[in-house]
């Protein structure tokens, strides 16, 4: 397992909103080892989504350096960033962002068809427990199911890094737990490096690493040597 698989070095991100400049990332530095289940936790506006977006290659930083698997991604051009997203990153959103006009399977295929080595759509959907709902459109699926499709879509690309932005934010407690369990399983069983952001500190015990953020800064980066299974956590 590669150490410092993900490494942020003094990353700044500023947004200009009219005359006000908001510093969303204010010298962020941290690192995550390969195969870790990392949770970035903080309040709304702490800059965790910004960090995740920069890490996922859908946003750029103003200063600093981001290394992923030994590759500097902070200065890639548009096309290289697209390649980076395509081959290295799997993204799971709070609102799933499934293509409403495609069935569950097709949504997964949308991802697999652009990758060189992808997993079979059916297999992935089976693995997330959606064997029965493959041919349903997103509108015919529950939130949890949609999120599972979303995760399946992310995993199908065999990414190096799975990024999850509040994946349970729009789900009820139990469904959220199921999703988190799925993610934890993927990490522990398949060795997938997962970075999950949440405002819910309660789920931090399940992580290998907990990064706390406030006002665009990392205030702590703690390794949890004994993560708990999600079922043992209650909130």
């Amino acid at each position, binding site marked *: 397992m590669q150490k410092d698989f993900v490494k942020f070095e003094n990353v700044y991100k500023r947004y200009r909103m009219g005359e006000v400049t908001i510093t969303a990332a204010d010298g962020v530095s941290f690192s995550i080892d390969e195969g870790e289940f990392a949770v970035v936790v903080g309040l709304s506006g702490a800059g965790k989504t910004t960090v995740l977006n920069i890490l996922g290659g859908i946003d750029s930083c103003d200063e600093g350096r981001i290394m992923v698997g030994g590759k500097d991604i902070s200065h890639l051009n548009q096309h290289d960033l697209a390649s980076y997203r395509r081959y290295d990153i799997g993204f799971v959103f709070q609102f799933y962002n499934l293509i409403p006009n495609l069935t569950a399977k097709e949504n997964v295929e949308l991802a697999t068809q652009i990758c060189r080595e992808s997993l079979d759509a059916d297999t992935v959907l089976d693995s997330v427990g959606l064997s029965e709902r493959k041919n349903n459109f997103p*509108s015919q699926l529950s939130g949890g199911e949609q999120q599972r499709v979303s995760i399946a879509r992310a995993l199908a690309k065999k990414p190096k890094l799975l990024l999850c932005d509040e994946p349970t934010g729009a789900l009820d407690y139990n469904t959220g737990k199921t999703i988190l369990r799925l993610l934890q399983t993927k990490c522990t069983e398949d060795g997938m490096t997962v970075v999950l952001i949440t405002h819910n500190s309660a789920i931090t015990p399940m992580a290998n690493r907990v990064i706390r953020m406030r006002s665009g800064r990392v205030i702590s980066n703690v390794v949890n040597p004994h993560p708990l299974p999600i079922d043992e956590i209650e909130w």
Partner: protein
Amino acid sequence: MKRKKALRKNIAREISRTKSRFISIFAIIAISVGFFTGVKSACPSMMETARRYFEEQNLMDIQLISTVGFDDEDAETVRQMAGVSQVMPSYGADLMVREKDVDAAVKVMALPTNGGTINLPLLREGRMPEKGGECLMESYYAQLGDKKIGDTIVFSQAGDMLKHTEYQIVGIADSPMYVAYFRGNTNIGSGSIAFYIMVRPEEFLSERYTRLYVKTDQPKEKFEELSVQCLSRFRVTTYADAKTRLADARREYEKQKKTALQTIRDGEQKLHDGEQEFAQKMAEGQQKLTDGEKELADAKQQIADGTEEAEAKLADAKQQLADARQKYNEGQEQYQQGVTEYNAKIREGQKQLDTAQREFDRQHERFYSVTKPQTEQKLATLQTSINMVNDSIDRVQSAIHRLKNIGLIADEESLYAQLEAYREELAEYQKQYDDGMAQLAEGERQLNDAKAQLDTKKEEFAAQKKQGEKQLSDAKAQLDKAAEQLAAGESAYQTSMLTGMAELQAAQGKIAQGEKELAAGKEELQKQKEAALEQFKQAREQLAKGKYEAHVKLSEAEEQLSEAEDKLSLLEDAKWYVSDREDDQGYAGLSEDAQRVDKVAKVFPLFFLIVAALVCLTTMSRMVEERRTEIGTLKALGYSNAAISAKYLIYAGTAGISGCLVGGTAGVLTLPKIIVDTYGIMYTLPETKLVVAWDSFCLSSLVAVVCICLVALLACRHDLHMEPATLMRPKAPKPGKRILLEHITPLWSRLNFTSKVTARNLFRYKARFLMTVIGVAGCTALIVAGFGLRDSITVIGDLQYGELTRYDQVYALTEAETADRKAYLMAKFHRDDRLSETLLSYMGWCSVGSEASDVVLNPHIVVGENRSDFERMFVLRDRETHEPVALDDSGVVIDERMGEVLKVKKEDRIRVIIDEEPYEFRVSDITENYAGNFVYMTPAYYEAVTGRPVKYNAVIANVAASAKEQEHEIANDWMEEEDVMTVSLISEQVEAIMDTLDSLNVITFVMIFCAGLLAVVVLYNLTNINIAERVREIATIKVLGFYSMETANYIYRENIVLTLVGAAAGLLMGSMLSDFIVESIQMNNVMFAKNVTPFSYLMGFVLTFAFSMLVNFMMYFKMNRISMVESLKSIE
């Protein structure tokens, strides 16, 4: 107030925030309204420009042309007529000029002067003519024929029409009488007028005015009535006068003719006398010359004889001389030989003599030096011996004697024997001595003998020599004498020869002299003869010339007289031709053209408005959808539905109204100018006067604004009826659905993933699908229709003049021709090799009506004398099947367009008025035809129906392939023929027709341009909405790692399919639209071909695609700019 202010602010912000949406509504409205108003304004602008032009230049209402001209009284009569405000008498004449090596007919018109203000020319350059010999040139030809101010127009023969034959151009101007470029026909030259010029009226020599221009509100029929009155007055006054004058002229002519003929006869007699005298004198002179020649010949003969004799003598003398010389030469030779022989002999003699001498001398010397001394010595010795012996004897004797004496002598006998021996010896010696002495003497004697001999010989030799010398000198003397004689002979010969020669020369000199004199005599005679002949020739020529001139003058006079008599007879049925403005092709064509533009203007903008409304609907729906939460909030806050919808109404209204204003202004400012200017190429009009079609503008604006406002209301109506709470919740994205296609498994399973996605997306947004397809289809249809219109137009020329009308020229014959005359003329036409086919025919105008229609057409009626020739020149066939249409004796064949207009089918009957007589014809068939209306029939049918024989009045001709270049020349040649009145060249007609139709091209291009604009706006707008609606989806696939191009293709693929479907539908619509347009703009006498070429369809398709690609290209950047972070933020 406050509320309103907030709302206003909201609207202002909305507009500035959604600029592209606002602009697209604005643009589509602007294009539609602008196009409609612009095209609609073209017709009134054109009409107004023309109207003003006619008004300002005071174009006549009625033009009167009389076959006999007008006088002031006629003018006054017209002026007195009720409703006539102005009358202006004027002149006009058609004359020939030589232009660019071609004879061209020119119309010369009088300028309005002396208070006349009708038909004022519009001066464009230079000044008005101020004196004779100056003219104004029309602007069209000034440009076409490169005529400038200062150039002169030279008439081939101004004849008795004008004062001058040369007119200098002092200004370029246009007459309102000629707005189109057709200058009319004439009966001179090739039959068509090339251009017109205007000169001052006093330049015309004509006593009577040739035309009257009238300003009036009365119809032309009134003037036709008036003409009867004026003409009857003319008959009593002018005509009677003329008759008397003509009779006087005829008498005068006959008198002069008689005198002239007498003069000619006298001249001829004189010439004849002179010629006879001359012949006699010539004979005498010739005789003298012959005598002289004979004498000379005799003298020559004598000389020749004398010369011969003298020559013979001389030859003898010469022979003798030659003989003498030969003899002399022989003598000379003998003499020489003698000399040689003599010399040899002498030399030989001398030599012998010398030898003898030498021998003698030698002998002599030997004798005296050797023999004699020796002998003498011997002798001396001998003497001595003798003496001794003697002594001895003596002693012995003595001794003996002694002895004897003594007597010793014993032996005396022995001593005596010895003495005896001594004595004998002595005797011997003595004898020897004697011998010697004798020998010596002998020798001496011999010597002397020899000497004597020698001397004799010498003497002999000398004598011989002398004799020889004498002989030689005798011979020499003889020779010299002979030489002398010879020289004398030669000299004598020479002398006689020289003398002979001199004599000969003298004689020859005399002969030469004689010959010279003779030649001089001959020459003199010849000269005299020639001079005389020349004189005769001149005299004869003069006479002939005089005779010819006299005849010409006489025949001219005769012609003039008979012409005048003809005219006079014509005067009896003198006629006025009354024409009004509508009779002028140009005037009528102008308004027809304008109306045609108007018709096109009616069709297209409607299309535009429909598409615009559809686009607005989609746009507004989208806008309301986006503002769903806002509507909910406002509703929740307690705003009334009206207040909330006001925002959208105002938004749409503002876009609509500003679009109307801007589009209308732009349309009015550009399109009428473009269109009128294009037509302006065909018409001579002043600067375009812009007339805004306010009604059209208001109408289209109203429709557009009302439409868009309705659309806005319609769009928000749905949302306004919902609960605020529902509205504030995000609208659930349209759920995905299986589409029909998926159930067709074999097809669906074959589609690849992206195709499936595209297919499903397409059917997901049905409204937008429909909208796009309609918009694109409209665009394609417009382009196809535009090109189709062009096809319909261009094909007319190809089909009509390439396939149907197969003749080149029409010769109109003068009326009142006898059958003989026509037969003669046709024979002459047949003989012209440059014409491959000729057809005698009747061609005239008639008016045709039918039961089914109120329209009355004025087609050509064509009756061909010969059916096979007719069929070669007029191709009658069915348009669709191309089956030939038979023309038989049972009915007429009419053209297809006439059938359409009059609603007449096969077997129907048509009412035809020919020469004011009504008839009914049966339509036996209908033929394909594009330009003009025609009624074809056989002579038999014509005669059967009308009961009158066919009055053939035209010859239709085909120019042979080899003579195509000379078409005009042929026409000019035939115009010389007095029976040929005018010639129409089909090629010129084609040009004129094609010019008219070409102007429709501009409309085509305006259409295509606007269609392009429409396509771009529609596609841009719809794609824009498409992207806006699916921005989340696009962001998602970007996050998944789609590259820019892949992302763009995701949307493009749908656009391409939409464009394909739209374009395909558009091709169909275009075909219909094209038909519709052609239908609505075609004229009564022109049938537009309803066939759109594959090229036009292709262009419609390709251009639509190009526009679609342009939009896609613009969208690429927009899609690239979509921010993933922004788009994927939690749903508001």
